């Protein structure tokens, strides 16, 4: 069925190609036109072209999310290739492609909101499998599963699954069950249960870094459930929720175990060679980078641990400048912003989009504000930018949810063909 107005794909592709070419020229300014620069250029521009062509033939419904992903992935590959010297970040590049593929897969999986919601039991199974895997494998081996060529971090994959669990449709909310005279929505109970399970697991693993992400997703999910069924948020409810949030925050702050307390009360300037080392180096790197950076490859932060994951924002700022760093973050924000451009048409998709927005924004907040010493440093990854396979792939899955909200399909293929 022909749709009257399609967006000009070649034009968007051109924009991405130009943006990447300009960045590669900047790299060439630092290193000259060496074979390594040309190699990076070839890989990235080819990936852009191939990705665009694939999109052209597969899904024409919406391409904002894909285009922004192509742009951001190419940019982050260029950043990652330049930290402290030119070395093509092949792994990052491959995981970028992996994320792009995951995006398409997850899009196909959830583009029909009814089917996606009907599959909720499957999401619950996935959730508990992943949680079980983390539970079984922590302790001696940490939260990583080593498969030889790739180390997987199951906790990253819990995030998209949790987003799927947190979203809900209006009919699910309106069909209440009654047990012993109490009306309840099973879906809501499951969300609360999953939140408690994940919080308990994080507590058990002594790694509370991602807890704010899950709490935010669950919070947004719950809030939307209230929100859809009310004309507007009543003042009392807002006050009640705010008091609850503040109370929970204070309780968490005071009751947190010792190793968390240490993080919360670290004065990085008092221990510049110890616990504050990474952050001090990160802040100095930003300060030395200034507005427009020292130039690609001229940074010094690559000598510090986690320079391309936890403090990647500072690494970018040092070599490319604060301006570039901030604009890169804004570019990543374009992904959740897409739901403002084309509003979702179903409540489940809407919940997914808000959940993804919450994950992306909370992760970025924890990462960037943490490394800049405005909030406690937790060591989470920066979506789409940090190196790390699991993080990239799960971000790809999340992007697929956004795409599904942009281009929902409520009709099955056979029907449309007939």
């Amino acid at each position, binding site marked *: 069925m022909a749709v009257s107005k399609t967006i000009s794909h070649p034009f968007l592709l051109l924009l991405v190609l130009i943006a990447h070419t300009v960045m590669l020229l900047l790299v060439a300014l630092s290193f000259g036109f060496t074979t390594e620069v040309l190699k990076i250029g070839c890989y990235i521009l080819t990936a852009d072209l191939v990705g665009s062509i694939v999109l052209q033939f597969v899904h024409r419904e919406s391409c904002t999310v894909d285009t922004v992903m192509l742009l951001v992935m190419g940019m982050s590959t260029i950043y990652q290739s330049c930290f402290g010297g030119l070395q093509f970040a092949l792994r990052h590049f491959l995981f970028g492609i992996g994320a792009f593929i995951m995006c398409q897969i997850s899009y196909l999986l959830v583009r029909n909101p009814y089917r996606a919601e009907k599959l909720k039991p499957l999401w619950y199974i996935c959730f508990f499998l992943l949680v079980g895997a983390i539970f079984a494998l922590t302790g001696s081996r940490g939260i990583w599963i080593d498969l030889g060529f790739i180390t997987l971090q199951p906790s990253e994959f819990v995030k998209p699954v949790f987003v799927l669990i947190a979203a809900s449709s209006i009919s699910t909310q309106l069909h209440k069950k009654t047990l012993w005279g109490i009306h309840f929505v099973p879906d809501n109970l499951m969300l609360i249960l999953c939140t408690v399970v994940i919080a308990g697991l994080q507590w058990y693993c002594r790694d509370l870094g991602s807890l704010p992400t899950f709490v935010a997703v669950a919070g*947004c999910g719950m*809030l*939307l459930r209230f*929100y*859809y069924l009310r004309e507007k948020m009543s003042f009392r409810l807002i006050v009640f929720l705010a008091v609850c949030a503040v109370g929970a925050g204070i309780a968490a702050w005071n009751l947190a175990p010792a190793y968390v307390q240490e993080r919360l009360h670290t004065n990085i*300037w008092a221990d*510049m060679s110890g616990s504050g080392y990474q952050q*001090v*180096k990160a*802040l*100095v790197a*930003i*300060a*030395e980078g*200034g*507005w427009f950076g*020292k130039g690609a490859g001229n940074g010094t932060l690559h000598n510090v641990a986690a320079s391309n994951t936890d403090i990647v924002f500072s690494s970018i700022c040092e070599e490319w400048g*604060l301006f570039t760093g*901030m604009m890169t*973050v*804004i570019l990543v*924000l374009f992904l*959740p*912003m897409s*739901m*403002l451009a084309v*509003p*979702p*048409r179903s*409540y489940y998709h*809407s*919940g997914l*989009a*808000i959940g993804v*927005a*919450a994950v992306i*924004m909370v992760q*970025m*907040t924890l990462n*960037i*504000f943490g490394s*800049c010493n*405005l909030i406690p440093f937790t060591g989470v990854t920066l979506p789409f930018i940090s190196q790390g396979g699991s993080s990239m792939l799960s971000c790809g899955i999340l992007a697929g949810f956004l795409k599904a909200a942009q281009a929902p399909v409520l009709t099955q293929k056979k029907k449309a063909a007939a």
Partner: protein
Amino acid sequence: MAELDISAPRSMRRAGVFATLLLIGFIGAFIYLGFTLVEESPEYMTRSGAASYGVVYDRSGDVLFDGTKALSSYPSGHFADIGNVIGDTSGQMKNTLVARNMEELANYSFMYGKGSGKTSLKTTLSHAANTAVYKAFGKKNGTAIAYNWKTGEVLVCVSKPSVDPAAGYANIDKLAEGSLLCKAFLPTVPGSTQKVSTLLAAYETMGVDAVNKTEYNCTGSWLNASGQRINCHESKGHGKQTLQKAFENSCNPYFAQLVQSDKLPLSRIIETYTRMGYSVNGAAADTLEMNGIRISAASTTLKDAKDFDTQWGCLGQGTTLVSPFQLMLWEGAIANQSGIAVMPNMLSEKTDVSGAVTLLPTPGKTGQMFTAEAAAAANAVMTENVKKNYSALVKYKCGVKSGTAQITDGGKEYENSLLAGFSADDRCPVAFCILIEQYKKGEVTTAQIAKTMLDKIAALK
């Protein structure tokens, strides 16, 4: 056929509002982060030790601190007189001009990065005058500070013993006590220089004429209403005397009787003291600050006008403590006869990392510390004091009050000699305070140091 309307319904659009709020919150916080990073980046550079530093000059271009090369490359003793005032970037001294202005002096700005590295600060100090005053102390320790009461420029600030930053801190354990502190900013027992404050309180409360006509008898020793004895340094006594005479004699019984007098209620003294910046009876008082350097506020305890401790406090002994800096500040307000002093300032000009020069704003004035009438009357009394007793200072139209502070320090008893005053001469319109520790008769006097200092300042351009 109805018009096609396929916009998403209201409740669905509310999700968009929700997402917008999230985005606005994040972007707002992010913009705040950007501002914070830009604003605090010099702090990151200095605190982490990643920054290099520029040069501090005196008013005529002489180097007072140099971050661009080793201080030991300067002639030996070049920095000896300003070591604990200007300080250095070593972190050994916290309350010095350099330590308090590290970010200003760092060869760094967010815009220009390390730029051309031309950062420098120009101070109002005169290194020549400073060195001369430092040398004038001879073997004695103490402090001297002077500032132009018209413009606020601090011209001399010496604290002896001092540390020579060029010599490094390898022998930090062997340095004389107090070498790392500038005593001009630290509270000390003011001795009879305190009588100026008491006099100002009396002028304000009783009126100038009434105070000037007040006569009390001094027999060398006086029994107060509580039966406690206040002795005069002149054991034979000064006899019956007016205020002017008592001021010149620095007569303790006279001023003690003035404090005990019903015409001068203690509450009024406390009121004037508080306005002048004293912390009376533990009340909060503003800490003074000059270019980031902190100066402790004066303090005293005044409970009962008929009690020895209170009278003794008003005479500058007991629990009364004042920094030479603050004594100088009050002299500034007396010198201009307004009761309002121009705030002292040490920095005049800043050259940033790119080489751009900016004139630094001069700090404002103090509040009305005492009335203009009281200031003018005190000015007259102090000027008269110089005419009678300080022939060496007459040519600079000075007004001064001397003081002897009795110090008991761990069983050791000694006397500090102080001189607070001002010059009304156009060549050297300065207010000053000089302190010689453990003064003994026959050694260098505060008046001699004052003369040396005024000579040098008057000779400046």
